[in-house]
């Protein structure tokens, strides 16, 4: 089933390039994948902690590389996210003027790359599948983007290349730092080796730093973030949905999957650095977001800012914080995809996303206004949405980390500042909402039409997922907890 999830989009992309009807094939593939992902979710054994649905083929006996897939709770949640957002992204794709088939093929390849990376349990393919999405992203922004698309395409490509090669070095170093008998690319073997403390603490520090920088560039961690807003502002909205919603989460998934459980000493050593950088994400980028004058740039910056909360959950290195981080990855992916989708619809109709030109659009586009409102409230972290449930877990996890009654610990300060970040995100989200949908409407927008009826389905799917997880966080927490708990059995020796 996992093989189907991974290979189906790739095959569909090839078929589309050869000449199959582009939109139809892509949509059918994405929906099929969503169904399979849902079946996986139902079939998944929630009590077990290890990987399930494993399939494995040897690729290189010399190097012990396997084309191996499997899911535990964490990767299953990522797969659900990828499948949901893929459907929405393909569905929201409007009319494409040139190379229509290539557009859909690129979307499917990004989706396949993300799914492959989340489902792989082999270090090599974990890395390789993420890179599969690099060229489609480059082409999507370069060919179909808006604004200064060429610059944005180069920037994201060069940044992500450097980041992922730093990551590659980190991964190779991780592999070679293990004693020769324990060397393996298999996640399960790596986990066993880490449990047996096969990695010395100094080696862990070097590797963790490389992984943190490598993944950090991919996630837009504070000093390495400048590619993200620009790329998301220029990208066509389905590409932005997939990239900001799913692909960028690869780095966070990698940190949760590899860096924290395999390198606990390294993670501990660099905690302070990470906390300072993530505050940069929350506070500095948060303020920068308020200053934005265009909806697409505002969304791009806000997606960088929210990464800070996920980092906070990861940095807290305890079960509740990490569970919160994993849930927030899911929730943020859905909400940012919804926001980018609506922004894309507005751009398609008005040709501009500058706050000065917009206003009062809720009158002519009531459904768009409603959906954007849901997305914005979710992103702020209003109770009832998945984002709230996960942020509250992160705040509890972070506040409790290293609890010392005598003095106010770094983490407690960070948590308080992060709570102020919520206020910041309220400010910019509500300002954006007011500038776009409220107030007086310029005359020229009076003839705009609302979202097509069929487009309301994917929007409704995203909103429904956000609300269900918001009211019943147990549905996802249940499946993540066994996986996360094994990590901290390791970490806390």
């Amino acid at each position, binding site marked *: 089933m996992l093989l189907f999830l991974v290979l189906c989009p790739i095959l569909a992309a090839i078929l589309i*390039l050869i000449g199959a009807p582009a939109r139809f094939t892509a949509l059918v593939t994405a929906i099929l994948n969503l169904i399979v992902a849902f079946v996986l979710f139902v079939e998944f054994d929630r009590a077990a902690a290890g990987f399930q649905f494993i399939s494995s083929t*040897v*690729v*290189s*006996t*010399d190097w012990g590389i396997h*084309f191996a897939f499997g899911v535990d709770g964490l990767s299953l949640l990522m797969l659900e996210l990828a499948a949901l957002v893929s459907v929405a992204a393909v569905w929201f794709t409007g009319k494409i003027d*040139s*190379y229509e088939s*290539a557009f859909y093929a690129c979307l499917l390849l990004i989706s396949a790359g993300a799914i492959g990376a989340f489902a792989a349990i082999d270090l090599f393919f974990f*890395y*390789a*599948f993420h*890179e*599969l999405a*690099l*060229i489609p992203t*480059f*082409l999507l922004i*370069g*060919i179909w983007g808006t604004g200064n698309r*060429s610059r944005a*395409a*180069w920037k994201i*490509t*060069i940044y992500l*290349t*450097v980041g992922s*090669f*730093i990551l*590659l*070095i980190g991964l*190779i*170093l991780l*592999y*070679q730092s293990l004693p020769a008998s324990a060397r393996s690319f298999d996640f399960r073997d790596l986990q066993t080796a880490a449990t047996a403390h096969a990695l010395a603490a100094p080696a862990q520090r070097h590797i963790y730093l490389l992984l943190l920088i490598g993944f950090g560039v991919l996630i837009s961690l504070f000093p390495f973030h400048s590619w993200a807003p620009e790329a998301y502002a220029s990208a066509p909205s389905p590409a932005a949905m997939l990239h900001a919603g799913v692909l960028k989460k690869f780095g966070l998934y990698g940190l949760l999957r590899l860096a924290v459980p395999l390198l606990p000493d390294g993670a501990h050593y660099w905690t302070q650095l990470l906390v300072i950088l993530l505050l940069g994400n929350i506070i500095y980028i948060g303020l920068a977001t308020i200053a934005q004058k265009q909806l697409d740039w505002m969304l791009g910056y806000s997606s960088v800012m929210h990464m800070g909360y996920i980092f906070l959950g990861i940095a807290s290195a305890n079960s509740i914080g990490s569970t919160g981080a994993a849930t927030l990855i899911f929730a943020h992916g859905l909400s940012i995809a919804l926001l980018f989708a609506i922004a894309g619809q507005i751009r398609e109709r008005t040709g501009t996303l500058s706050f000065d030109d917009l206003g009062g659009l809720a009158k002519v586009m009531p459904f768009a206004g409603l959906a954007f409102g849901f997305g914005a409230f979710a992103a702020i972290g209003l109770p009832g949405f998945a984002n709230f449930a996960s942020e509250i877990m992160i705040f509890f996890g972070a506040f409790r980390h290293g609890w010392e009654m005598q003095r106010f610990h770094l983490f407690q300060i960070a948590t308080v500042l992060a709570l102020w970040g919520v206020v910041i995100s309220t400010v910019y989200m509500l300002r954006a909402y007011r500038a776009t949908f409220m107030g007086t409407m310029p005359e020229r927008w009076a003839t705009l039409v609302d979202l097509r009826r069929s487009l309301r389905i994917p929007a409704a799917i995203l909103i429904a997922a956000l609300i269900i997880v918001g009211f019943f966080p147990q549905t996802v927490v249940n499946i993540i907890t066994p996986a996360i708990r094994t990590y901290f059995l390791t970490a806390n020796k």
Partner: protein
Amino acid sequence: MIAIGAPYLEIAVLVCGMAILLLETFATKMDRKLFAYAGIVVLTAVLIGSFFLAPQETPQSASAFWNFYIADGLAIFFKRFELITTILVLVMMIDYAPEIQRSMDRTGTNLGEFFSLPLLTCAGLMYLVSAIDFIFIFVSLELVTISFFVLVSFARKDAVALEAGVKYLILGGVSAAFLVYGITWIFGATGETNLQRITTSFAGGNVDTHAATFGAVLIIVGLGFKIAAVPFQAWVPDVYQGAPTPVTAFLSVGSKTAGFVVLIRVLQPFLMLPNMQRLLVLLALLTVVYGNLAALPQQNLKRLLGYSSIAHAGYLLIAVVCLDGPSLAFYLVAYLLMTLLSFAVLILVSQKTGDEISGFDGLGKREPFLAFAMLVAMVSLAGLPFTAGFFGKFFIFASAIAQKQFVLVAVGILTVACGFYYYLKVVRAMYWPAADQPSAQNETITISPLSRLIMIALMVATIVLGVYPQPILNALKH
């Protein structure tokens, strides 16, 4: 089962090359393209024959000939490698023949020579990968180089080609001189020209290491010209740009590969000399940095590929520093696939719109097949996963990390990022031309079935080896 002695492979190739030369002289009425097809058939037969080799006699027990010729796993592997390269180059030459005829005024003249010289070169390359004696290395290297002198300046009415020919001639002569001088120093120090016996005499201990080091450095200089390592790369851009495109492809794959095989064979005894590894690290650093940085601003695709071949020589030198034969071989195979694929596309496109990168503007619309082939080649050259190029870089960086050559790794990473820029520049031109002018070049490009087949085969091989590298690693173990 039939068993063939290894040296018969080269003899068959040589005989075929000579036969074509004779036919060129006497059979004036024959269609010249038939020669190329004959060459392809013979080389394919030899390639098949190479799978039925008799087990080789050990050098110790053998006659004088076996003292300088070895047919070990490495040699057989690279013999096949050179055969495949030459076959692909011949296919490209058939596509390129009209260009040659245009530059020669009279139709059909000398085309037979153009098709027979690659066969002689191929024989030289096959000898070269088997050579374990300095004299034999020198002789077969000269066979290769002299054929290339002619091939590079083949379009002799063209001033650029002549310039390329003269540059290659002079620098080829200089490099040969360095090589011979180095050989004499080593002979003076050890009294031997045979690599295996040099190893034993080093082990014996009573060798003047200063003299031997000096000789080894001179040899590295001489081979440095062949593999285009910095600072011996000055000839590359001009020669690559001026030579007929199939010859450029041949130079950058065939000649470079043989150079690396010789280098790794020659270095084995000398690495025990002091400072030799440090020298190679320096050479590798200079080569990756120079090749990648110089490729950044290029606007001519042939020149760009020239600089990129310097860059790849740098990555290959990292494998040489680590003395990692399998990684080197895998990288060379990947390099063969992607380089020849890009040259195959370039030959077809440049006949219509020239070999500037701007000639590729909008190719994605005009010729989706060629554009996609170029995309695969460029992505693999840049080193993206699921292409052979990535596994090549992965293996090399892995062995560099294992040897704790962290400076090489760090510099390598930065230069790989440069590589993404200049390779994707070609992709950008094909899919979103900078200026949105309606491209005036609306002529369709005709792709012959043979070259379409070859391109598909190269693409498939690039992607399959990018997912499943084991066949090549197995082939090396023999």
